[in-house]
């Protein structure tokens, strides 16, 4: 939205392709009912309303394609689209990818049981649908999201029986650098922590769920303290009854379109895995292809808005950047780097120590779509299938409906034994980046 507004302001002809039916993406999500369901903070709602209102002023002056999927990107740039009307190919001067991230979790026995949700999923169901995922809920994981979601669930009347976080929350956030750089975000975080305290929610730090049990859906969760490297400490197990568990251990960047186009990339587990390399103006190594927001590395919605403006400006005059652009965008560059300094601190909370990869057992499913177990992947690796492509071909991990996004980083962790492997290449992204009905491909429309 931010990139579209800026590119339009600078006189470019803009098409905005949105997979959703309504603008807003994941963070500034709009309710399916049109009625605003208030579970967030007033400051977050204010940011959302400001951006949506700026977008509504240009909506009729740009081409806005909602419910439309970009399923391939090649050099050119040449973008392949599909929606209910059919499929089409567009060749813009420049394309800004703002594809965001999806959630990830560390596998453990029972994590595929119905009633185990991603924390952001639980939040989406609450925000856009007005539905609580359960009556008694455990929330767990790394980084700030589990705390935020727990507070929102508690505020919405859910009995949050425990919040378990991989790392202690406060020591990291109270570093002087982060206190200043991230004062806006921290103020919101502090309010969420206060909600938890007022609702008598138990906050267990350095504590993780290592098992979920239940007949047809989750009925209890086994929480245990870990030794700091992710290994459970014997004798600290606690079984907690619940009807839902919400987990989040960070995110995977939706970078497959940039990678498909051939953009140079790097690996950064804490920021979303394989990320396209970009310059100050968010340009990738491929002509006409720019990336903004979390899809270029997890840094949150505040950065995304500034970076959208930067990328939108650069896209609007891609082949003839005015020398004054740097100066015109000075404020956005500053905002972005201030937030990035804070996000560097938040990253430390998303660091997954090697011991977490010991929670799964040989028969624990890692690739949910294709039901590929940890044991099966280990077997493939021990037989010499050590690259991501080889593991995929040998086990089918990453070949399913989600396009390999859900298990990508977990398979990488299996392949490298949980150690950073900067040379590991991702599975080659191929069209279709998202499932598209054959009849849509068969019906070419438009230019």
């Amino acid at each position, binding site marked *: 939205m931010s990139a579209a507004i800026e590119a339009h302001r600078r006189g470019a002809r803009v098409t905005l392709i949105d*997979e959703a039916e309504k603008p807003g993406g*994941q963070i500034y999500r709009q*309710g*399916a*009912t*049109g*009625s605003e*369901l208030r*579970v967030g903070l007033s400051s977050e709602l204010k940011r959302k309303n400001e951006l949506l209102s700026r977008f509504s002023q240009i909506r009729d002056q740009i081409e806005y394609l909602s419910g439309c999927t970009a399923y391939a990107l090649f050099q050119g740039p040449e973008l392949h689209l599909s929606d209910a009307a059919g499929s089409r190919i567009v060749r813009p001067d420049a394309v800004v990818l703002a594809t965001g991230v*999806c*959630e990830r979790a560390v596998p453990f026995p029972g994590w*595929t*049981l*119905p*009633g*185990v*949700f*991603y924390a*952001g*999923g*639980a939040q*989406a*169901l*609450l925000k856009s*649908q*007005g*539905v*609580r*995922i*359960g*009556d008694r809920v455990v929330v767990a994981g790394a980084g700030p999201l589990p705390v935020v979601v727990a507070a929102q669930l508690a505020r*919405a*009347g859910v009995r949050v029986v425990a919040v378990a976080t991989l790392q202690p929350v406060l020591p990291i956030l109270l570093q002087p650098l982060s206190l200043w750089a991230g004062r806006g975000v921290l103020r919101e975080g502090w309010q969420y922590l206060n909600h938890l305290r007022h609702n008598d929610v138990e906050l267990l730090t350095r504590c993780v769920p290592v098992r979920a049990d239940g007949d*047809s*859906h*989750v009925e209890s969760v086994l929480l245990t303290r870990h030794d700091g490297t992710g290994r459970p400490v014997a004798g600290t197990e606690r079984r907690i009854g619940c*009807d*839902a568990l919400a987990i989040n251990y960070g995110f995977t960047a939706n970078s497959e379109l940039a990678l498909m186009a051939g953009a140079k990339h790097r690996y950064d587990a804490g920021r979303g895995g394989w990320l396209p390399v970009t310059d100050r103006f968010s340009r990738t190594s491929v002509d006409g292809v720019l990336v903004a927001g979390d899809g270029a590395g997890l840094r949150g919605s505040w950065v995304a808005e500034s970076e959208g403006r930067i990328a939108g400006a650069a896209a609007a005059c891609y082949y003839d950047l005015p020398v004054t652009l740097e100066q015109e965008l000075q404020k956005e560059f500053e905002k972005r780097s201030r937030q990035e300094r804070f996000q560097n601190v938040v990253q430390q909370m998303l660091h997954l120590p090697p011991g977490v990869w010991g929670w799964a057992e040989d028969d624990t*499913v890692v690739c*949910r*779509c*294709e*039901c590929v177990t940890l044991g099966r992947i280990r077997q493939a690796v021990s037989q010499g299938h050590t690259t991501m492509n080889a593991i995929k071909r040998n086990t089918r991990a990453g070949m*399913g*409906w*989600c396009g390999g*996004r*859900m298990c990508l980083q977990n398979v990488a962790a299996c392949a490298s034994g949980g150690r950073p492997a900067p040379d590991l290449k991702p599975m080659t992204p191929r069209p279709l980046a998202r*499932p598209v009905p054959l009849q849509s491909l068969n019906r070419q429309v438009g230019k």
Partner: protein
Amino acid sequence: MNGSNRRIRSDTDHVLQFEFEGRSVEAMPGESVAAALLANGHYNLRTAEDGSQRGVLCGIGVCWECRCVVDGRPNTRACMTEAKQGMRVRRQQGLDV
């Protein structure tokens, strides 16, 4: 399980009905099939190819774990499908071909 208290919406004047596994389920206008099923305490939406049971995971259409058979169409994501009066939804069994 009392489903109504899983909803924070109070505009209950236009309730609609659809079928899940042959049983009637109430939904609010605009609600997704996944949300309506969760509000009514139905977590188990699919049996995977290995026989394990699955339900809603990401809630935003990315993971495809909640794929059901809706009005005869398999691989339909419950979280991305709006509940409609008279809709027939059932659990997908494996590939369901």
